[in-house]
């Protein structure tokens, strides 16, 4: 008798637990640790769970340095996130490796995406499917130190490349031995300058970085050389700064030792925190009446691990992450720009003294279809060093790095 009642009690408990697990779905969200991004996602999870009882979202984050490795290893082991945040430049890699699955067309109709999001998001469409969508986008702008400008008697930030060089020259200070005390422009090949050269300067000189299908390198041209000459001349000929002065461009600017630096909107909060740094932000300088910008973004994708009810919950959460409301929260919390022009390009945002130049830049921005960001960035770093340290001509340097980068592209497209 006793055995029988035990049996009933235990099976009853099993029944209750299994019913409970039918009611509640837990999905996992992964991103890298960055205080304001973590806060923003926590806010979004809270509002999502309030609207969708029965779904809980577990938020996991860890340092950027390990991010890509951990995601790759976890998902391939059948573990890890249901929804994952990834840099748009990694998409091909993730897709190719079977880490993420396409977004369902009924929940995310293609014409709606193409209608509502900024044009750059089109690079998330591969083989007729969308694989991820961003909450926010980033672009570049020119940060300038207002105090150093007024000290040098410069009335306003430069509008063209020629004005840019002239301004940088006036902002540069050296001691008697020729050592920099203050640099006009903080060249930093480790920072954002490779984007500036690839997507902005190349186009300003009439070229483009890659062929339209992204399979062939196109910067290995006279316009590409002109663009590289422009950047390297800042250090070599005009001597308005040296690469890595005070370690990183943003450090030199923060310390008030650099007149100008090019960086993304995510740097605004860093510079705002710096006491005594009186800075302004303006659009990147143009050339011959043209302007270009570089845009990048992080997207949310559904991992191949998500199946069944977890998949449905993941789709719902992704909807929530790409909603108008989420984009405003992201802008207010993180300082990154809404991914939909309808929200981004409102007067309030366009005229914002700090976000404004970035948002205006989005209108003429291009995103690079990276295969692998690191080796592709290395091309610029190496080409710069070849010209500045080895005295190579820009065209020779470019043909060297282009050969190597083309191998990376070839290897990818072969598969």
């Amino acid at each position, binding site marked *: 008798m006793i055995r029988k009642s035990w049996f009933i009690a235990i099976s009853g408990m099993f029944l209750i637990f299994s019913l409970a697990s039918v009611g509640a779905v837990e999905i996992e969200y992964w991103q890298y640790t960055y205080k304001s991004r973590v806060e923003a996602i926590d806010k979004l999870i809270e509002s999502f769970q309030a609207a969708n009882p029965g779904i809980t979202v577990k938020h996991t984050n860890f340092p950027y340095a390990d991010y890509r490795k951990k995601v*790759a290893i976890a998902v391939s082991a059948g573990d890890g996130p249901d929804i994952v945040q990834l840099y748009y430049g990694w998409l091909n890699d993730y897709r190719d490796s*079977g880490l993420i699955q396409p977004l369902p067309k009924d929940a995310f109709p293609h014409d709606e995406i193409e209608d509502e999001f900024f044009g750059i998001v089109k690079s998330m469409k591969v083989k007729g499917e969308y694989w991820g969508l961003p909450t926010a986008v980033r672009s570049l702008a020119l940060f300038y130190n207002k105090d150093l400008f007024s000290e040098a008697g410069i009335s306003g930030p430069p509008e063209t490349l020629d004005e840019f060089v002239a301004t940088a020259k006036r902002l540069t200070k050296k001691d008697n*031995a020729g*050592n920099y005390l203050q640099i006009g422009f903080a060249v930093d090949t*480790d920072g954002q300058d490779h984007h500036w050269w690839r997507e902005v300067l190349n186009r300003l000189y009439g070229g483009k970085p890659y062929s339209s299908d992204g399979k062939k390198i196109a910067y290995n041209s006279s316009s590409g050389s002109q663009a590289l000459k422009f950047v390297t001349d800042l250090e070599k000929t005009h001597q308005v700064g040296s690469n890595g002065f005070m*370690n990183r461009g943003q450090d030199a600017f923060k310390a008030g030792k650099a007149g100008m630096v090019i960086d993304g909107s995510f740097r605004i909060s860093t510079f705002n925190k710096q006491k005594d740094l009186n800075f302004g932000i303006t659009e990147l300088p143009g050339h011959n009446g043209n302007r270009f910008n570089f845009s990048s973004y992080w997207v949310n994708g559904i991992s191949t691990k998500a199946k069944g009810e977890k998949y449905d919950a993941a789709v719902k959460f992704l909807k929530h992450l790409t909603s108008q409301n989420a984009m405003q929260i992201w802008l207010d919390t993180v300082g990154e720009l809404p991914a939909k022009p309808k929200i981004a390009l409102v007067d309030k945002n366009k005229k914002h003294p700090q976000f404004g130049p970035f948002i205006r830049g989005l209108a003429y921005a291009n995103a690079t279809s990276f295969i692998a960001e690191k080796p592709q960035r290395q091309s610029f*770093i190496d080409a710069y*060093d070849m010209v500045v*340290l*080895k005295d190579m001509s820009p065209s020779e340097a470019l043909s060297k790095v282009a050969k190597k980068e083309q191998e990376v592209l070839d290897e990818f497209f072969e598969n």
Partner: protein
Amino acid sequence: MRPGIPGCSLSDKKMLSRFLERQTIGQKQALTAWLFLLIPILFYVIIRFYPTFEAFFVSTLKWNLLGKQKFIGFKNYIKLFEDEEFWLVLINTFKYALIGVPISLLFSFLIAYYLNEITFGHETIRALYFIPFLTTAVAMAWVWRWLYQPVPIGYFNIILSWFGIAQQPFLKSLDQALYSIMAPAVWAGLGFQIIIYLAGIRAIPQSHFEASSIDGAGRIQVLREIILPALRPTILFLVVISTIGFLRIFDQVYSMSADSAGGPLNSTKPLVLMIYEAAFDEFKMGYAAALTVVLFLILLVISLLQLSLMRRWTR
């Protein structure tokens, strides 16, 4: 009475005790030793040797850690030998070892030799030399990275400017960067080497020194005829250890070169960093494994050579 063996049935116990009875004492001791060694051996086989053999296997694959593994034979090795970067990196690696080892051994010997002669402050100075060895390589490398900066912040360049010497680019130069990174590696290793040298010098019987002073030997003679020959095993041990250390240099380069890329233009990149990049930046596991196998073979050959030299030299 033979001790009972728990967990065995009676017949098992009988068989085991009969087996043990037949063994000589020597055999029993050997058996006990093997039993105790079993755990570390198992550990080594599973944790160390198995992955090593796995690396040989992976080096014949094309595999990005996530997708399917594709067998491609020796293609990774062929690609490697055709890769210009590989040869540059190999030369860099040997530069670290061939220049770093003699310099560090010479410095540490000189310091140990003179440190041995003083008693006042001996322990304090010894501790000061040892501290860098205890410090995290990454933290130290970052401090040195700042020391190498140009004038407003970099102390080395500030000191040079006091003497009217021109600014040096250090880490930004193709010719100087490798040596600039080698310097903190040498410096950090000194403490350990000094301690080993000191122990070696102290272990020389006092009677040797007394006999030499009776014979009227000078300082140089004592050094050449007594100290150096007696230190042979110590020197060879340090050569082997620090050669392996320099051939595997990584932390310093990773922390001190811009973007951790072993630049400028790969001029400071050692083999281990190239392996790391191939495996964890580009996810070319097969290529990385092939590089690892090459490094393994290099270390193996060099260690065996040094060990055989050691045997001949210390005989």
